[in-house]
Structure formats: C-alpha cells, structure tokens
C-alpha cells in the first residue's frame, strides 16, 4: 500500500461530514431556491434520502474488498486495462472537481471577503496550504480535521441558533403547494454537489482503522452533513425569503450577516465564513489527496507525494480556465454537471458492483 498512515473512525466521520458540507453549504441554498422556491428545503430532504441510498451503494462497492482502494478495486474487478481506463475517468473527474472546488472558494472569497485580490492569488495560497496537507499525509489531514471540526461545527450550529429569532416561517408557507415540479426536478442539481462526489471516499476506506464502524461512519457523516445543509437552507428561506435566497450567489453568507445578538454580537459573518473555509479546505485537500493517490496508482509510483506539486499547479490553472465567469459556472453546475457526476459517481460504482458481484458468483459456483 502506498499510504501507510491510518485514520480513526471518528476522523473518517469528521472528514465525511466536512466533505458533505464543503462547497455545498455556500452554493446549494441559492441553487435549490431558484427552482424550488419556498420548498427548497424539501428538495434538500429528498436529495438527502437519495444520498443515503448512494452511500448504501458505495458501501456495497467497498465491501467487495475493503482492503483495496477505489483504483485498486477497479483494476481488481475489471482487469488491468479496463480498470485503468475506468481509473482515468475517475481521475479526470476528481481533477476537475478539485479545480472546481478551488474555483468556488476563490470565487467566494473574491466576491465577499477580499474583492480586489486576484482570484489566481487566492486560489494559489489555498492550493499551497492544501499541498502542504497532502504532503504531510492522510494521517495529518485526519487529525487536523478533528482539531478544526469543533470550531466549524459549533459555528454552524451557532449560526442556526442565532438567526432563529429572525426567522419568519411564513416565508416557507404554503408547504409543497406550488412549484412541485421544480421541487422535485431541483433534486437533480442538488444531488451533484455533495452526494455524487462521495465516491471518492472509496479511496479512503482502506486506510480507516476498522471497516465496519467506518461503513456506519459514512452514513452518520453524510446524514449529519445533509441535515445541517437542510437546516441552513431552511433558515435562508425563513430569514431571507425564497426570492432573496435565490437571488443571492452566496445566501448562507448573507445569513451570517443577519446574526445580531443584543446589538453586540453582530458583524461576525466572517467567523461563519471561516467555518466554511475549513470545510471547503478539507474537501479540496481530500480531493487532491485522492487525486494524488489515484495518480500514483495509475503510474505505479512509490509515493503519493511524487506528483503533488505539478498537480497543484495544474489544478490552479484548471480552476481558472474551466469557467470563464460565474454565470458560465452556474449554468454548468445547474444543467450539465449532474449528469457527468452521475456517470462517475453512480454509474461507474454500479458497474464495479455488478461486475464484482458476477465475478464473486462465478467464483462461488466454480468452488461449489
């Protein structure tokens, strides 16, 4: 095995949770609200249920042989050449995904926090931090996520609690009376962001200390993450109103602006944004790590760190050239990304599962 470090089940849960929240927390409320309007939170709930199904499927895939990571698994199940080809598909997707995530955080920072800083620069320093993380290895990423998790989690919960007095639930009424089609259709783009990307955890599974609790942890992380996502969407709708939410590019940041406790605890939206930095940072780092892992499997390299530096630079440039502007990006995320993600995040794992299942049966019948 290339990776020698091991992470604990708790760390795995935290990583899954952070990954689920990741970029979703800043883009999803707006995306769902623009189609589902007041019912956006219902869309989130539906997406969560489907997401749990996806997690179940992924757990089945990894159960074929949990000591092998995604790339080893695909070569093991599909044979060397087909497996490699599938690995390439996975790797391209992860490369684009990492670049997109990097672009998202860059876009977020340059529209809300530091407006005059060039986005390349923001992406550069973010990627460098990520690079350091990947260089230090999975163990360190796991531990660091554990350290920052309490901050990220409590600040999100605090956000939900502190804006609660401002919430007006008449904004989300009438429940499921209008835009029903939109509510259900919006599930498609909603699924993309956290749920169809979850397959990358198939590459992390073998490095978790114990397997069975890890499977459970996968569920727990995704469920907690989606519940928080749903609650934040609901709060955005209730506090800002569906139209306002849909109109904002980063509504959950605006939600942070609404915090006001006793005329003292205000203007702290950046502290909330920092919680998202952390989740997005771990998402990028994890994606980048898996990318490195997959690359070194693909080329049979000795170390995951070998390609990290060139890949980091490729990702930065990719992040810049992938989308010309934010409208283009929004269009892609809403209308095209779901199907691409579904191909990689559902179809390919399904393929692995099916072929693996058939092979197992064959083996059994042969033995029998």
């Amino acid at each position, binding site marked *: 095995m290339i990776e020698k470090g091991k992470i*604990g089940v*708790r*760390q795995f849960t935290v990583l899954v949770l952070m990954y689920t929240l990741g970029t979703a927390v800043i883009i999803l409320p707006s995306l769902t609200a623009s189609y589902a309007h007041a019912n956006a939170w219902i869309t989130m709930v539906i997406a969560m249920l489907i997401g749990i199904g996806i997690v179940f499927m992924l757990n089945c895939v990894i159960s074929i042989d949990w000591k092998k990571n995604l790339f080893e698994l695909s070569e093991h199940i599909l044979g060397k050449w087909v497996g490699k080809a599938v690995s390439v598909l996975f790797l391209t997707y992860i490369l684009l995904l990492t670049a997109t995530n990097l672009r998202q955080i860059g876009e977020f*920072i340059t529209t809300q*926090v*530091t407006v005059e*800083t060039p986005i390349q620069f*923001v992406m550069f*320093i*973010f990627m460098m*931090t990520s690079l*350091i*993380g990947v260089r*230090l*290895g999975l*163990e*360190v*990423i*796991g*531990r*660091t996520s*554990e*350290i*920052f998790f309490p901050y990220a989690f409590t600040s999100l919960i605090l956000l939900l609690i502190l804006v609660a007095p401002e919430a007006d639930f008449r904004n989300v009424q009438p429940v499921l009376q209008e835009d029903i089609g939109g509510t259900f259709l919006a599930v498609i783009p909603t699924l993309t962001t956290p749920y169809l990307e979850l397959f990358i955890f198939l590459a992390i599974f073998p490095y978790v200390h114990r397997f069975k609790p890890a499977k459970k942890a996968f569920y727990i992380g995704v469920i907690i993450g989606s519940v928080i996502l749903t609650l934040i969407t609901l709060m955005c709708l209730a506090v800002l109103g569906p139209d306002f939410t849909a109109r904002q590019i980063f509504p959950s940041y605006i939600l942070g602006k609404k915090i006001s406790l006793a005329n*003292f605890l*205000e*203007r*702290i939206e*950046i502290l909330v944004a*920092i919680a998202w*930095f*952390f989740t997005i*940072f771990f998402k990028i780092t994890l994606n980048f790590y898996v990318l490195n892992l997959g690359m070194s499997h693909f080329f049979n390299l000795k170390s995951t760190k070998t390609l990290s530096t060139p890949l980091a630079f490729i990702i930065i440039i990719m992040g810049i050239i992938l989308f010309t502007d934010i409208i283009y990006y929004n269009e892609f995320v809403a209308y095209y990304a779901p199907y691409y993600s579904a191909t990689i995040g559902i179809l390919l794992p399904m393929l692995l599962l099916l072929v693996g299942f058939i092979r197992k049966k064959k083996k059994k019948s042969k033995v029998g």
Partner: protein
Amino acid sequence: MKKKFRDMFGKKQQKPVQTNNIPSNLSSPLVTNLDENVKTVKSKLGNSSDLVTRSIKIGKNQPVRAVILYMDGLADKKFIQDFITETLMLDIRITDLGEGQTISQKQSEAIETKQTQSQGSETKNQDETPSNADQAKKEQTKSDQNSQNNTYQAIQPASSNTSNQKKKTRKPIKLKQLKHKKSSNKQQSSESSESTIGSKQSNQAESGTNEKNQTSKQLSIEQSSSQSSPSTQSNQANQANQQAKQGDFFTILKERSLTGSEVDECHDYFTLFQFLLAGDTIILIDGYAKGFTIGSKGFEKRGVEESSSTTVIRGPKDGFSETLRTNTSLIRRRLKDPSLWIENMVIGEKTHTDIAVCYMKGIVNDDVVQEVKKRLKDIEIDAILESGYIEELIQDKTYTPFPTINNSERPDAVCAGLLEGRVAIMVDGTPFVLLVPSLFVDFFQSSEDYYQRSDIGSALRLLRFVCFFLALLTPSAYIALTTFHQEMIPTQLLISLAAQREGVPFPAYVEALMMEITFEILREAGTRMPRAVGNAISIVGALVLGQAAVEAGIVSSAMVIVVSLTAISSFVFPSFNISISVRLLRFIFMTLAAMFGLVGIILGLLVMVMHMASLRSFGIPYLSPMGPFIPGDQKDSLIRLPLWRLRTRPKLISQKDMEREDTEPAKPKQK
C-alpha cells in the same frame, strides 16, 4: 564553494580521531610505584592547584606509604578528615591488621631484593625533580624499553620540568609527543641549570609531604624499597606474587578501616580520573597498581530552593538543584516505590556529565524507555552543560517552533509525569529535568491545577488556552480587522480606532511590528540585565515607549493595548518553551494578516495545526488527545475533572497499569 564545504566536512570527520587519543591514553593501568602514579596524576591534571595530594603512612610497625588524592572544592573535606585520614592514620594503628600486615611484610621483602639494583638512581627520583637533563634522558630510554606504558613514561620527563612544557604535554597525543621530543629535549638541556633552583622551590611548596617521606624512609629502610619506581625486572617478577597478596591487603583495608560507604577500586587512570574529578577521594597505596576510590562528593552546591521558573501559590516549594543526586532524592522522596527505576549514564567526552533516566517500571511504555536510551546512547558530543543540549539532541524534529520535550524545575511536576508513564531525564548541573514524551497540552498544565479545586483548575487551564490564542493572534487580528475587515468592527469602536489612527504615519502592520519588536527587546533586556536595574526597564518600557509614543503620535493607543495584552498573555503559560514559540509565530501571523487579512490568518492556522499534527514526541502524536481525539483523555487535557474522575492514566503515553485509583466521590452520609 564546493571545496569550502568539503573542507568543512573534512574537518568534522577528523575530529573524532583526535578525541579518540585521550581515552586510549588515559586507559593505561596504574603502576605499582606510588610516586610515579601520583606524578602521572598531577601531570595529567597539569599540576592544577585544586588537586590535593596527602601522603600518609598506614600501619603501626611497618607503615605502608599511601597517598590520598582529592580535588579541593569538589570533595567533602570534613568527611575525608574524619573518615579517611583519621581512620587510616590513627585508628589503623590500634587495629590488628593481622594477616594483612604479615603479607605486606613479605611482599615488601620480596620487592626489596629486586629493587636494590636500581636503587641508586631511584632514590634521587624520590625528589620528584629530575635535577638534570641526563637523568630525564635516562628515564626516557628506560621507558622506551618498557612496553607496558610507554606513553605515560613519555610524558613523565616532560611533565617533571617547567610548567611551560607541562602545558604542552598535558595533551597526551602520540603524534605531538614525537614531534616535540626533540624540542623538549633541547629545552630541557638549556633550562636545566635554571630549573634546578626553580623547581626545587616550587616542589618544596608543593609537596611538603615528600620531605616527610624522605625522613620516614630513613626510619624504615625496608619500606623505602616500595617507593621506588618500577623497573622491568621487578615488575615482571613480582606481578603474580603481588597480585595474589594485594587483594587481601586491599580487602582488609576496605573492610576494616575505610569507613566511607561508596568504596570502589580503580585500576587505570581513566576510572581514577573519573572518580577523582567527580569529587571522590582516591587512595593510592605504595606497591599496588590499583587504588581505592571513596565516595566523598561534597562540593559546594545550592540548596533545595524554590524554583524560579515555575512558581505556584499552592503546592510544594522545593525545586530541583544542580546536583543530580539531590534531584533524584527529591523524586525518590515522593515516590517510595520500588518501581521507580533510575538508570545512570555518562554523556559528554569532556564533561562526563551524569545523566539519570527515571521512569516507573510497569507504568511506562517500555518502547519509549528503549527509544530514550537509544537516543541518549547515540549522542556523541564533547560537552553537556545543560539539559537543553540533551533536549536538542534527542528531540524528534529540529525545525519546528514547538517544543516536543517538556522540562520542569519542580519535583512534584516530574513525579506526576512519571506517574503518567513519562520518562524523566535528569542532567547533572542543571535544575531542569526533561520529561518525555510531551504533548502540546502538557505545556499548558501547571502542577497547581491539581492542587486547587478542579473547577478552578479547569477554568485556569482554559484561560491559558485562551491566552495561547490571544498571545498568538491578537496583533494579527488587529491588523486584519483594521486593514481588511473594517465591517467587522462595531461602528463606535471603529470610529474611535480611526480617530486614534489619524496622524499615525505608519500602516498598522508596521506599527504593530514596531511595538512588538520593542516589547521583545524590553523583555529580553529584562531577563539579561542585572536585577538591580530591573525597575529602570519597566519605567522606560511603560512610560517612554508606551505613553510617549502614543503622545508623540507614532503609535495609536489601541496598538499599545494590543501589545500589552499580547505580552501579558504570553506570560501565562507555566512552561517557558511554549511562550517562546508563540513569540516567534506571532510575527509570522502578523505578516500573514497584513497580506491577506483573516484569510491569511486562517490559512496560517491551518498550516500550523497541520504541522503540529505531523509532529510526534517519542512516537506519541503531538496533538493528542485532541487530534487524534481520545475521549477518555479529555478529562485531563483542556480541563481537569475532579481527582476521582481521573481514574486512568493517559492512554497513548502509558498503556500498562492504566488504573489509577478507585475512589468514589465523597458523599455525606444520609441519615
């Protein structure tokens, strides 16, 4: 360039060759001739003035000549007087030495016969001052023939000359010796006429005992033979004979008359010097190629005083001192358990520093002990002057701002560490005891946390963690907020900040940097300067730099508050190491804040935590029990739960004998 580097490395490789010479030279065994032994010892010490040689006679009828050697200042004079000199010179006369005496008689007779041949020249030698160059040459040739210890002999003539030459020859290096042979001979011949007078004078002062020897020799002719230097014939012939009897004489002396408790024998100069220079007393007896070492360490030392670096309000006030034994005793006094094991080591080719590795057998993780010992053994250095040397040589990672080894001046803290399964490394000559493995949280724990009630202890501990972030981030947060995120500052505060900054000519970063550096200078000056002028610094710091700078409009008053807050916060930590790291990192964070505002600070924090997470202290992840999160160990990390809740020892540090106690919380009896 390249050549230069190579030269550097080349030199480095040569070094051990040079140093290797000394021990090989020192390891030569003692000889039977007392005077020669004494002479060698003296010459090797370069006739250092703190070496005291007292020659005495033991025995009633046929006294044996002996010399007591000790280092003045290192050894306990009273002890030597009462228990060595007195017993040997007075008490032994009334003791029946019995067998031993007869043996010594026999032996000395045997020696006498052989000795007569060379007596002519040897008697002159008793003056310890070769009066002319010819004699020195003679001896040299003799010694050249003597294969047993040529180096020692080679030194002898030189050392017995002027002090100038002694210096040269004190480094007993073979190569040098050969080179200098000719020149030294020349010098000898040229100086011979003068030296007779000079050396005589000096010797009279130096060894009054020798004169006594001479008179005593006349009284007992038989004994005189044993004073003579060894000749080839006598040595060879007597070797077996002597050794058979010596042992007995030695045991009698050891068992009956040497009342010191630490009595050992030494056979070569190496061990002799080791004991001698550690403050022990050496007794060399004429006719034996070995000597006694008697533990008489009694050098001046600081008493057990209150530790100055870590103070507590409640808790024991004793602190470690510079003496290793005192320190071990302080620990032993607290942990009266046989499982407290103390292993000694000597590190430092020049300092021969005693190092004690302490641990609780059965609690400690044996792998850690093995690792500690291995790392200690791998140290090859000439000097260990403080435990900081050891710390730097055995720590896991050099280039990190964070300390991975804790130190303490407090025995109670060290005992607590031992009981948690840590290994303590004590170094002679410093009151700072190292504790490994040490985790990040350990640097925030004061022993007083456990002496105060748990809720208060917890609150104080939390306060320290808060202070860590305050000390680390206050200036950078100030910079970030005032130059990047003004929207985060409440309007009223922003207005007053802006009002203060009107007219300040520097950007906030430069302002902060200036003030922080000024403060660091103040602090450094405060620690380095003599105590007496301490007040002056505080006046200068507070008034001149603080108030005046604000009034002059060079810095804003908010910045002074920020810097003071930072400064106060950095004094909170019970351990000094972490406060140094914070001081250092603060500047990095300030720079990051000036570049990217809060985003920079956050990324900096991420990198810092990732770096910390990658650290290990003797195999234990540095950030545990937070990352990896160990629920069971949370009871004593950020907060301290009541003692009855601290049932188990920290998980990763000790993995054996986890149970600590089983006390139930005290509850009033219900009627």
